[in-house]
């Protein structure tokens, strides 16, 4: 259920950096049910348990020294009432016991800061340099990259691919994207949130991408690594190859 590329192992819910002993997951969007509720969708709250379980399983499997949450931990939309933060507190407290936790700021994390401070969890904005990696959420353009950075690892985009078979069935798979910007590598992680099925990067035009980092780039040469909690992790080829196999025009 995973694929290793150099020092990075990609598993269905994130990545493990062997050289740093660090586990990375992105886009938890805890409490997304509240956003849905605001737009009139009343979903029973049952997502948090799935997210927590996925992280605990990964901790067990990789036994990391460090866990980095790559932004959008809580899907906040209003104030920070205690009720809404029960789950985040529960998560932070249960993780802290077994591993060092650090958080990179995402676009949804404004009210998270006081809680992290209280729980004594390091918080990075806009990103953090670790070894040869630069970790960001991905909602802002990359400005000055640290000198030594060889690879950028980010979230935010919630990448996915939609594949249609010869009978016309289209199924969506979350994926990681691996590509480059000049001589710096870029790895985009899938969202761990079950409620974020993701952007279909095969049929989305460049302007339809969320991240300003990616919308600057030609995604055609990015490698797609499907990360499906059911099917596992499969290296699929590049975005443009998949587009050709699917008969989707390359010049979207």
């Amino acid at each position: 259920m995973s694929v290793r590329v150099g020092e990075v192992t990609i598993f269905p819910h994130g990545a493990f950096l062997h050289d740093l002993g660090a586990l990375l997951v992105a886009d938890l969007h805890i409490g997304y049910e509240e956003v849905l509720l605001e737009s009139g969708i009343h979903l029973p709250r049952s997502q948090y348990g799935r997210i927590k379980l996925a992280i605990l399983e990964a901790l067990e499997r990789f036994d990391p020294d460090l866990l980095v949450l790559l932004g959008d931990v809580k899907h906040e939309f209003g104030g920070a009432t205690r009720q809404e933060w029960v789950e985040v507190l529960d998560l932070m407290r249960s993780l802290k016991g077994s591993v060092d936790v650090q958080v990179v700021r995402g676009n949804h994390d404004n009210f998270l800061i006081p809680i992290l401070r209280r729980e004594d969890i390091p918080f990075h904005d806009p990103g953090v340099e670790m070894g040869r990696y630069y970790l960001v959420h991905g909602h802002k353009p990359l400005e000055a990259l640290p000198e030594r950075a060889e690879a950028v690892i980010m979230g935010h985009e919630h990448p996915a691919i939609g594949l249609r078979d010869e009978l016309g069935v289209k199924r969506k798979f979350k994926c990681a994207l691996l590509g480059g910007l000049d001589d710096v590598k870029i790895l985009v992680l899938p969202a761990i949130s079950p409620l974020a099925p993701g952007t279909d990067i095969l049929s989305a035009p460049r302007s339809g991408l969320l991240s300003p980092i990616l919308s600057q780039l030609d995604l055609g040469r990015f490698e797609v690594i499907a990360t499906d909690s059911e099917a596992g992790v499969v290296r699929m080829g590049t975005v443009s190859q998949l587009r050709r196999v699917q008969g989707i025009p390359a010049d979207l």
Partner: protein
Amino acid sequence: MISWAERRYSYEEVLSRLDPTVAEWFSANFSSLSPPQEYAVVPILEGKNVLVSSPTGTGKTLAAFLGIVSRLFSLASRGELEDRIYAVYVSPLRALNNDVYRNLEVPLRGIYQLARERGIEAQEIRHAVRTGDTPPSERQRQLRRPPHILITTPETLAIVLVAPKFRRHLEGVEWVIVDEIHSLVENKRGVHLSLSLERLEELAGRSPVRIGLSATINPLEVVAEFLVGYENGRPRDCLIVDARYAKPLDLKVLCPVDDLVHTPSAVVSQRMYELLADLVRRHRTTLIFTNTRSGTERVVFHLKKLLNEGVEDLDADESIAAHHSSLSRHVRHDVEERLKRGELRAIVSSTSLELGIDIGYIDLVAQVGSPKSVTRALQRVGRAGHRLHEVSKGRFVVVDRDDAVEVAVMVREALSGHLDRARIPQKALDVLAQHLAGMAVERKWDAREAFELVRRAYPYRNLTWEEFESVLRYLSGGYSELETYKVYGKIWYDPGGGAFGRRGRYARVIYATNIGTIPDEVAARVYNVENNRYIGNLEEEFVERLSPGDRFVLAGRVYEFVRAKGLKVYVRPAFDQKPTVPSWFSEMLPLSYDLAVQIARFRARIAGEIEEGRDQGEIVAEIARECSTDEKAARAIFEYIREQLVFLRSLGLEEFPSDEVILVETYLSEDGNSYRVFHTLVGRRANDALSRALAYLVGRRVGRNLGVVVADNGFALVFPRGVEPQGLLSELDPDGLRATLRSALANTELLKRRFRHVAARGLMILRNYKGHEIRVSRQQASAETLLKAVSDIEGFPLLRETYREIMEDFMDVETAELVLRSLREGRAREVELPPLNVPSPFSHGIVLQGLSDVVLMEDRRAMLERFHRMVLELVEAGQRAGGG
């Protein structure tokens, strides 16, 4: 007890029971009673529940209102009329409400004028319409001075039940009239109304007289139970007035060309339009039904062209119009008014004119293609001859051979009075959720008491406490991980104390603004990218799933998706290519079970006669006589059956498909897919269930996704290249069918779409929230995501309801079980043909239709790996090309 009205009251008897002024008015205006009036007026006066079924124009509405107006006038002349609502009239159509308002205005005015002449003083009887269109000022007026007769829709009725002050006017209501009940019983709108009626009865504090008015429908006993509901586990009393055959029928099947097979389709269409133009010329006003909205537009276009070319004094542009639900209300209203004024020679409609709005004088109903059920055929034809004793004249134009057989048998059944059975959805938990939310707004309830109220509605008479309680739990925010999230519930519910009630200040608004059962589909308009011409509509949901290059069927033709911009879709014609996307959202009406069985028997009987060597001319004449067809249609039917017979005999097969023999054939198509066709004539809804269950069983065996084609005359499984076609219905266990089907539905587009509808009805997805309409909800979470989020919640009522709705209402799992059982017990058997590279004549319609859906079996891993292999092949091919 449900009983049939036998006592027919004479004109004098009826008049003697009425208020003298009302009786005098009646006799001055009507010299006789119509059949519904002879049977219904007196029982209604005696306080009996009555169901009246008869065609349009037989005086049903007056039959219902005469007694009520008489009683109200008696009260008014004694000065005893109170400021409250005495009678509620409910109809599914706002347009019909306005008609009824006007049709009451006339008699009331006449009666009061007569009263003045006789020197009788009487209070005014007020009647008023209240619908979603009623302005606040008018509602205020109704609150201050309530109408004595309230004319409304099912949705508005459900809203006034919680209106804080207005609802008090409903206390003591004495009569409830449900009009056009035939259009409600088979869908959730009717289920919704059945609960409103019980809530109204609770509010009334008495048992109002219920009067149901219906066009032709069957069985009337069941419709009667639906109307009156249950009390202590037994149906309340109801008297049935069956006047379904009050108007004589003149039906005929017409075929526009001599040879339906070899005549090019463009010529067939042209001849069909000419035939229709000819019918229009020879009648004063013709109502033409097509089965699709796009068909409606095409017929209008061609009729205008043909009739403008003629020399007749007929301005086709002015006198031919379309009427369908995609047109704006304003346009439709204008068309209706012109029709009433007799300005139109022809009006073309899909389904929108089926209901009984007053459309004036129609002397012919023409139908293009098959209406798919005997009952619907009669309801449509019943629109002709708008007065009693006038003939209902119907002409059915057929343009393909399956239609010819189907319509011929349908006309035969209609003429001999064999109607298909209506089916009422049972125990819909989404509709129940809506009502429980509404009841909670009214007051605090003892859950047991509410349960008993719900079970008095016919569709819920068998509801279990467990089912009922699961809806309360869902509404109160149960099924969440943490108890604390109950704060998000729409009601509070205390299982210990057994009580529930309203929670939150938005409860009333949420209920009132999200009421109803009709899913709101957002239609995207589709244009040809090459010339910007409008082609038709697609549902937004369908568009969301398209990728550039996908090909799909719209209005009977194949188009390629280019791009979408908001609600505008651009496509390019790809008429000669095969669709690549199943047409999930077909607007086709399904062939009914009863008619399908008759078609199977008919085809087999004619085949038998041919085989016995009876003279061809004799058989053709017999078909024409028996089914009231013209000679061309009879010959087309004969040839069609003969070809199938010759085809089978040439292969050495001694059987012929019938209601006892299911022919199974395997057709290897040129594109590499193969079709396994099952000739099951059990109605399309049962075919839908059988095909998906079998596709699941076989797909699991071969480890691949299989396509299904669901048709009226059978179904097909579609196997991708390299997979051997296989499978028989006898492999399916009738007792395990529902479970198999449930697995087969996982991940299908059908499930996702229906779940969204159920979630909206069950108030999980609100269409209106905090004062604004919600359209963004789909961007926040797709139906697929929501479905996934609730799929592992044990017993979640809305998911349970989604499966029930699909299996029982959309499909016909019960009939499918019967089919499997008759295979097991040897009452029917499957007969297999060897694989062939031509389809048999009876299969053409099925294999040409395109996929209806795909049953997913291939696991996600295998699918990923297959696509990865395709990429590798692409890369290798590129390298070879580059190297060479």
